[in-house]
């Protein structure tokens, strides 16, 4: 049962949780976690394809790279959210919607 499809299935579920998480959670940090979920879902895909698809190591390299970039992205995102907190002392995303239309 542990062949390619299961991994893809898990990745797809993780992906949809991630998308769902990003769209519904009020808290900025929770949204970032959602994004992380999406990225990791892609990682699982890469590693699974590389392992089971009989391909070369590109998948693994790609996954490593994604982890690095996810970290960088998280750092910057958290910095911005802290900044928002300092100014508006809330990290509720809906608060930050003064610019519209």
């Amino acid at each position, binding site marked *: 049962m542990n062949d390619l499809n299961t991994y893809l299935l898990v990745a797809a579920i993780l992906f949809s949780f991630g*998308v769902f998480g*990003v*769209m*519904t959670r009020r808290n900025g940090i929770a949204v970032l976690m959602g994004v992380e979920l999406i990225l990791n879902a892609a990682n699982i895909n890469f590693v699974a394809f590389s392992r089971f698809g009989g391909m070369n190591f590109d998948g693994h390299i790609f996954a490593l790279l994604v982890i690095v970039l996810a970290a960088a992205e998280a750092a910057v995102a958290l910095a911005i959210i802290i900044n928002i907190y300092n100014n508006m002392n809330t990290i509720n*995303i*809906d608060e*930050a*919607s*003064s*610019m*519209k*239309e």
Partner: protein
Amino acid sequence: MDNIFINYSLFILFLPLAAFVIQIFFGKKLPRQGDWVSIGAISITLILAIAMFVGMLLDYNPDFRQEASFTWLDMGAFSIQLGFLVDNITIIMLLVVALISTCTHVFSLKYLKGDIRYSRYFAYLGLFTFSMNGIVLANNLISMYMSWELVGVSSYLLIGHWFEKESAANAAKKAFLTNRVGDIGFFIGIMLIYTAIGSFTFTDIFEGVAGGVLVGTTLTLAGVGLFLGAMGKSSQFPLHIWLPDAMEGPTPVSALMHAATMVAAGVYLTIRIFPILSPDALLVVAYVGGFTALFAATIAITQNDIKKVLAYSTVSQLGYMILAVGTGVYTAAFFHLLTHAMFKANLFYGSGSVIHSMHHALHEKNDHETDAQDMRNMGGFREKMPITYWSMLASTLAIAGVPLFSGFLSKDAILAGSLSFAQHHPEHFLLPVFGFGAAAITAFYMFRMMFMTFHGKPKMPELIDDIHESPKEMAGPLVLLGTLSVAIWYTLPHLNPISTDGSWFTTLVHPVTAVVPGSFTAHAIEEGAHHAHNLAMGISIGVAALGIGLAVLMYLKNIISPETWGKRAGFMYDWSLNKYYFDENYDKYLYQPTLRLAKKIAWIDWELYDKYFINGFGHVTNWASRVSGKFDYNIIDQFLVDGVGRIADNFGFMLKKIQTGKLQNYLLYVTAGVIILMIIQSY
């Protein structure tokens, strides 16, 4: 252009124009406001015209004809030649125009003394004479059309001379527009002919029609089209409404234009194009002429304004001439035109001097409301104004068709022509009935006018002692034209005052055979006229006597009172009094609907089409926005640019709403977008 006649006619044509230009620019500054410039010019043209007339008489050659033409514009295949044509008819017409114009100039010296636009008046007279001569001398339809419209403009200017009066301004506009209606017909006729024959000059047209290039219904339509132009100018039946109103202009103008020359232009055109008028076209001409004669005469009976009577009598006499052309005796028509010009102008001058003296009398009494032209205020002027009375009497006798006077000769010829036509074509018996009926009524209303103004007790006794004869400048033309109303001038080499055979006129102006196959041959016309001559003479004398007698009974001896007959006539009387309500009907069914239509279209163009049709989409989007719920009123009034802009505006407004500012909505829209794209792409 070496020959003398063409040179003279050029002078006759351009001298008045020169006078017009001088008057317009320097009129005010010249001594006596430059009237001597105009009179000088017009008298030179008169002398030249007389010289040509005498030359014609000496030459005494019926087929005299000289033509000169030049290329006006040439674009390769399409080119227009203009030119001058001088033949017997032209010479006579030039003389008529020059004579009457001179008389009007002289008459106006006193009549318009002290008028604020004195110099401009003489300028317009010069312009009129130039354009009238332009019509007479034209050898092609284009320059005739051009002078046609110039005559229309000069009549507009002269009728509107006292433009302060609202009625004068309206009359001028009405005259020009009605003439324009006629001119449209004229132009369509020209186009029909040009498309078929390819040239505008009469000679080519006659050859073309003779050669069968233009036949059948197009020929008739072309003929009727040209005749429509004549109807406009000579105020025949449907387009007659402008002539009575044209009386708003000064009386000398009415004498010159609306009696002798301008209105005769229509008849002159019909005479010129007679050879190409097909039998059906001639029938149309005849019926229009005949009906107008009778119709106008019936109105003249009940008119009380002296100039209106003369105006309607002119309309009816013109109807006569057109009837004559229609029935084939177009030389008689030209003869009547000649005689009519003389006595009708004289009648107008007479009425002018009567009105002039009435004005002075009223001025003394400084009572400004009573109308100086209303015959009911006149009466008993015989002793006070002998010269006016006798000259007017002469003309009245002439117009009534009493023997020994010019009118009798010409009218008799016409009636003979229509009678012989009826004998040849019994189904058209109506034409002579029109003719003789009109003759009777003419005699009646003319003498009614004479008796009401000159005979009987003065209706306003206090005025009578201030009425006195007009000064010599006004009396001169009266006397001159009065004498010319006598028959003797027209029968000259032979002295028999009754018949014109052998007279200078009949020899010099003889009918040319019609170019249209199957139409009248010259011989048939002359022979027919002779045959019916005696019978027609008898009936016309009888009819004239009847008319005069009735007028005597009613207005001289007051045995039959006009009021009782008026009531007994009932609706007939007030129909005729109000000119058959033509003006009112035209206004109700023609002018108002056009104005309303114009207003509607302008509204459509400015309001509806611009704001709604192009912005019409705006409504569609409004409906859409209302349906989509929460849009309130201020959204709708935010229309900045109409049309496409408004659609864009509305969509923009709705789409703008999507940008809600909430981050998660954006992400929702993105995922939705992705899903939609996937769905689309999978098909």
